[in-house]
């Protein structure tokens, strides 16, 4: 799975714990092709905040062409416009989310938030005690080597 469509780890902003094992997950949407993940969601949110695709991509440290490619993929798969870009006039270059773009972003955010909580709990349940024991074991071995 490439990260072309912004399907990064949903836990990547969580600080690493002292436990050696921690949960990792990617959640994304697909039709014929993968088209919407964490990266695309962040881009839409940033476009809404900044009012311009160029500013949004700069804020995210992403190239403008990559941002446009992400948007094109979403719009192609869904066959609808998610970001309306005004051409010319006073509002030249201004971009806003269409109602469909807003709806998609909100649904995805709520969906991932709920899954994130569940995945964390499920991971803790299924790997409970395991990581700590192994940590100690690894720690002992390292001490032995010293």
């Amino acid at each position, binding site marked *: 799975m490439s990260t072309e469509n912004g399907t990064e780890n949903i836990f990547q902003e969580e600080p690493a714990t002292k436990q*050696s094992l921690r949960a990792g997950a990617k959640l994304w949407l697909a039709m014929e092709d993968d088209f919407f993940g964490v990266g695309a969601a962040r881009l839409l949110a940033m476009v809404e905040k900044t009012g311009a695709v160029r500013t949004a991509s700069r804020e995210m440290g992403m190239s403008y062409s990559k941002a446009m490619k992400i948007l094109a993929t979403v719009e192609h798969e869904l066959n609808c416009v998610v970001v309306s870009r005004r051409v010319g006039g006073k509002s030249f270059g201004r971009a806003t989310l269409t109602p469909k773009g807003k709806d998609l972003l909100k649904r995805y955010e709520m969906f991932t938030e709920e899954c994130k909580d569940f995945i964390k709990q*499920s991971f803790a349940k299924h790997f409970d005690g395991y990581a700590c024991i192994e940590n100690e074991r690894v720690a002992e071995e390292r001490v032995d080597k010293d």
Partner: protein
Amino acid sequence: LKETVKAKSRLWASIDEGCFGPGTATLLEFVAKTGSIKKACDEMGMSYRKAFNVLNDLERELGYAVLSRQQGGKDGGRSVLTEEGKELLQRYERFVAECDDFVKKAFDKHFKGFTYSDEQDKA
């Protein structure tokens, strides 16, 4: 029938720099089934070198062996999962099964009535 939007997920356990994910789990399942890394690779269409690296990295990160390997023989030696390897695989599979189930339900809930294309609006 037109394609509809669906959710996909990939879950893994991060171990310091490495990770235990679907690829590693499948490899261990095949080794358990076939009793050899070489046969597992053949069935999976994975190179032996790649499998060897995956397993070595995993064991180094974990600090213990997931496979007990007996070298030599005409098939390149037999390999079986250690108790720790079995346990890790089982924990991962249970975790994934539970989460996959939840992700499906959460998707259905949050994307209920989601319309996207302009064609759908006209319909």
